[in-house]
């Protein structure tokens, strides 16, 4: 019994994550479509369920029922297995993430490295899938994707190092606790690092404006060109899971994890009431809209959503109302922590969407140039700047603020220099000097 | 980005001056044949109000009075011989090759010998500044001895003039390609080959443009029925009996 006991809770958490993740990814897609529609003066999905709320489920059913097509000349085994690799890698990475102080599958002492390492294995799914499809588009997309991932992982890793210097531990829980102890989220201490990680994480998840591998106007759908139905859905799931993973890393590392804003200031304790009020507001909106739905089923569904929100409101409000010292009150940290964590993850993902609908797409060589000639040098300088600031603070006993600000200023100066020199290296026509020789 | 709109306009007032003796009066029929032999504006399909339009109208007060439309009944437009400076220059340069010079609906047409097409094309571009090959096409007259009209529509940016060069070509008679003069002729000649079967000598890549390469027959010839098709090709490649 003693052998089994420690595994019960993690396995339970893992089951919850695996069960909820596809649903969550589906609803992220729905939110993305809604946000996109709002930015593009249209409505987005409206047909399935009230305001399209059942759209993800309809999509999932459609994808599952689709014919599974494997191209004739494809390598069947690899073609079959590649999406699984992607999804597995993405999901494994979630294991080390602390969603609230209590909800975590495993608190590894190499937590952050584990997330990075495992999620980088997803690249095999992409490369092998592209190769196995036996199509030029797929292969080009796969190679691009691999090159891009490897390039931006460098700068993402270095950006993380900056924050790790501050935390002094690789454990994800330890990192959040370090932020809790100082009261400063690392985004304020290492803003350059956060910026680098933001850019690199967009590139790593192959999102616009870095969505080279699946740039639909050039490579049709990149490595996914030949995929359809369920396998395609798996790739999609992997992509959105990866988004959740990078958003979680950023949240844990820079945005204070499960901590409430101003967690250490009693003056801002009223923020504790924000989550239940927010859910209450959503519930109220649902009830208000329910009678206006055209079909009875949709009305009922809308009411059901409202009731769900009420339930969440209760769950969030109870620990606040319960008498201090009771079991309910002590669960406050867990429940509210989870809320704030998910809230920050959602905000981070919203930034992803916002950028996607605003920017055109980089060209592949421009993207590589940005990665190697701007982000990587900048992140190296950032690590050195952080190191300098911390050394001044810890070894020479400088006060923290000026030491760190000095480091940040130096990093920014380096960034400005890189930007200024980078402009000169633009060659629009690749290999202009070789032009004459290839002209047949 | 914006530019002075009048900058490129000198040709128009100048021409309007030159063609002073010609149908400048708006009320006269603009299509009167033979009205412009002396003018140097053979290819100026400008409305008769050209002189008026040369002066930019004040915004809000269109210069063109809403007068009655010109009476169209005077004489039906028909081709007439043309003899102006341009034609004379061509005739002196290529004495035998210019077979005919016509003016049809105020548009100048030169009929030339097909075998000297390349020379004339080069001269037109270099000496006469017809630097834009607007179009190259053909017309099929099956009853004629040389059944095809090869038609080149030229335009001159400096002179703001159009000129049409026609060459009579018999079936299976090779024509020199003008691709070396105007690179745009590449596709246009391919299309003419595709549709009429006219073979251009010296073309870099003469194959069908719009139709599949294995297609039999030349659709725009008059003896190609509108319902006709290459049934063998359709059956083999599309797997259906008829593409209609």
């Amino acid at each position, binding site marked *: 019994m003693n052998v089994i006991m420690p595994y019960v809770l993690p396995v339970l958490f893992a089951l919850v994550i695996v069960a909820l993740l596809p649903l969550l990814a589906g609803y992220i897609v729905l939110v993305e479509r809604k946000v996109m529609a709002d930015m593009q003066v249209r409505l987005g999905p409206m047909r399935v369920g009230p305001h399209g709320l059942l759209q993800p489920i309809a999509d999932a059913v459609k994808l599952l029922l689709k014919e599974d097509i494997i191209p004739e000349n494809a*390598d069947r085994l690899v073609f079959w297995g590649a999406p699984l690799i992607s999804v597995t890698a993405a999901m494994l990475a979630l294991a080390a993430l602390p969603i609230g102080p209590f909800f975590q599958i495993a608190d*590894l002492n*190499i937590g952050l490295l584990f997330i*990075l390492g495992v999620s980088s294995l997803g690249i*095999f799914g992409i490369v092998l899938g592209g190769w196995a499809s036996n199509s030029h588009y797929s292969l080009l997309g796969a190679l691009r994707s*691999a090159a891009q991932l*490897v390039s931006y992982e460098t700068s993402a890793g270095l950006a993380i190092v900056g924050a790790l210097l501050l935390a002094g531990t690789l454990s994800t829980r330890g990192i959040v606790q370090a932020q809790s102890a100082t009261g400063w989220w690392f985004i304020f201490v290492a803003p350059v690092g956060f910026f680098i990680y933001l850019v690199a994480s967009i590139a790593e998840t192959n999102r616009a404006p870095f969505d080279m591998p699946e740039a639909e106007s050039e490579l049709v759908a990149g490595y996914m060109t030949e995929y359809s139905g369920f396998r395609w859905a798996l790739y999609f799931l992997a992509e959105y899971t990866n988004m959740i993973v990078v958003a979680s890393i950023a949240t844990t590392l820079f945005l204070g994890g499960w901590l409430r804003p101003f967690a250490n200031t009693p003056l801002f304790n009223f923020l504790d009431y924000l989550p239940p009020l927010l859910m209450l507001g959503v519930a109220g909106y649902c009830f208000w809209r329910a009678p206006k739905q055209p079909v009875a089923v949709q009305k009922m569904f809308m009411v059901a959503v409202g009731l769900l929100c009420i339930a969440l409101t209760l769950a969030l409000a109870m620990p606040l109302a319960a008498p201090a010292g009771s079991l309910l009150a002590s669960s406050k940290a867990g429940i509210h922590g989870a809320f704030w964590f998910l809230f920050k993850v959602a905000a981070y993902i919203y930034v992803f969407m916002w950028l996607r609908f605003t920017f055109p797409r980089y060209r592949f060589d421009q993207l590589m140039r940005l990665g190697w000639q701007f982000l990587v040098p900048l992140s190296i300088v950032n690590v050195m700047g952080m190191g300098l600031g911390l050394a001044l603070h810890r070894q020479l006993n400088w006060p923290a603020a000026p030491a760190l600000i000095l480091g940040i200023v130096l990093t920014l100066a380096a960034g400005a220099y890189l930007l200024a020199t980078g402009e000169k290296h633009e060659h629009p026509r690749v290999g202009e000097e070789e032009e004459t020789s290839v002209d047949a | 980005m914006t530019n002075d709109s009048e900058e490129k306009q000198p040709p128009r007032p100048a021409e309007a001056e030159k063609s002073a003796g010609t149908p400048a009066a708006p009320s006269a029929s603009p299509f009167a044949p033979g009205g412009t032999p002396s003018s140097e504006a053979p290819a100026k399909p400008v409305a008769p109000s050209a002189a008026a339009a040369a002066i930019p109208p004040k915004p809000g007060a269109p210069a063109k009075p809403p007068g009655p439309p010109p009476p169209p009944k005077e004489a039906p437009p028909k081709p007439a011989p043309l003899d102006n400076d341009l034609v004379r220059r061509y005739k002196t340069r290529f004495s035998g090759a210019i077979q005919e010079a016509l003016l049809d609906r105020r548009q100048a047409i030169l009929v030339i010998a097909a075998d000297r097409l390349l020379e004339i094309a080069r001269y037109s571009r270099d000496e006469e500044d017809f630097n834009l090959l607007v179009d190259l096409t053909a017309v099929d007259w099956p009853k004629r001895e040389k059944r095809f009209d090869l038609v080149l529509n030229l335009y001159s940016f400096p002179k703001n003039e159009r000129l049409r060069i026609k060459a009579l070509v018999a079936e299976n008679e090779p024509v020199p390609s003008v691709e070396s003069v105007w690179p745009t002729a590449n596709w246009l000649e391919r299309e003419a080959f595709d549709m009429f079967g006219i073979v251009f000598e010296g073309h870099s890549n003469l194959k069908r443009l719009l139709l599949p390469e294995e297609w039999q027959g030349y659709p725009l010839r008059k003896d190609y029925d509108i319902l006709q098709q290459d049934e063998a090709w359709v059956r083999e490649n599309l797997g259906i009996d008829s593409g209609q």
Partner: protein
Amino acid sequence: MLDQGVFYFFAALAILSAILVVTRRNAVQSAIFLVTALLATAGIFLNLNAEFLFIVQVILYAGGIMVLFVFVIMLVNLDVALHQVQFNRQWFVALIVSAVLAAQVAAAIAVSRRTLYTVPAAPAESLEPNTERVAFYLFHNYMLPFEIASILLLVAMVGAVVMAKKRV
């Protein structure tokens, strides 16, 4: 109990995929099985409380080196390669070498059978925090080899670029 189950599972997986690596005709499939073998090894490392090495194995070996392999295989992937004979005629050499090796191992085990199975491992509680210890050794006792390794990597990088560059 669980520890041993995990080891035997990963060991079997490693050997099985290693066999597939050398027997598959298709280089890409070989590479996939090599990744599997490496990940199985990583699992064994984790089982041995070598967490840092585990993650190094995953990031560097499986995630880095193998991606390079897959890249190169795809670059030089020729349809003709599939129709070529993938094995040479040196089976007997391989057989002899393996046999000799097996004999050696058998002899070694025979000699030290007792000690091999009875030496007690250091108790798990006595192990120091892995990552910190590795860092300590790397940057104290093994500083010079560490620096030499970095120079080796630099040299390798330059060499690889020079080799693979198209037009010098």
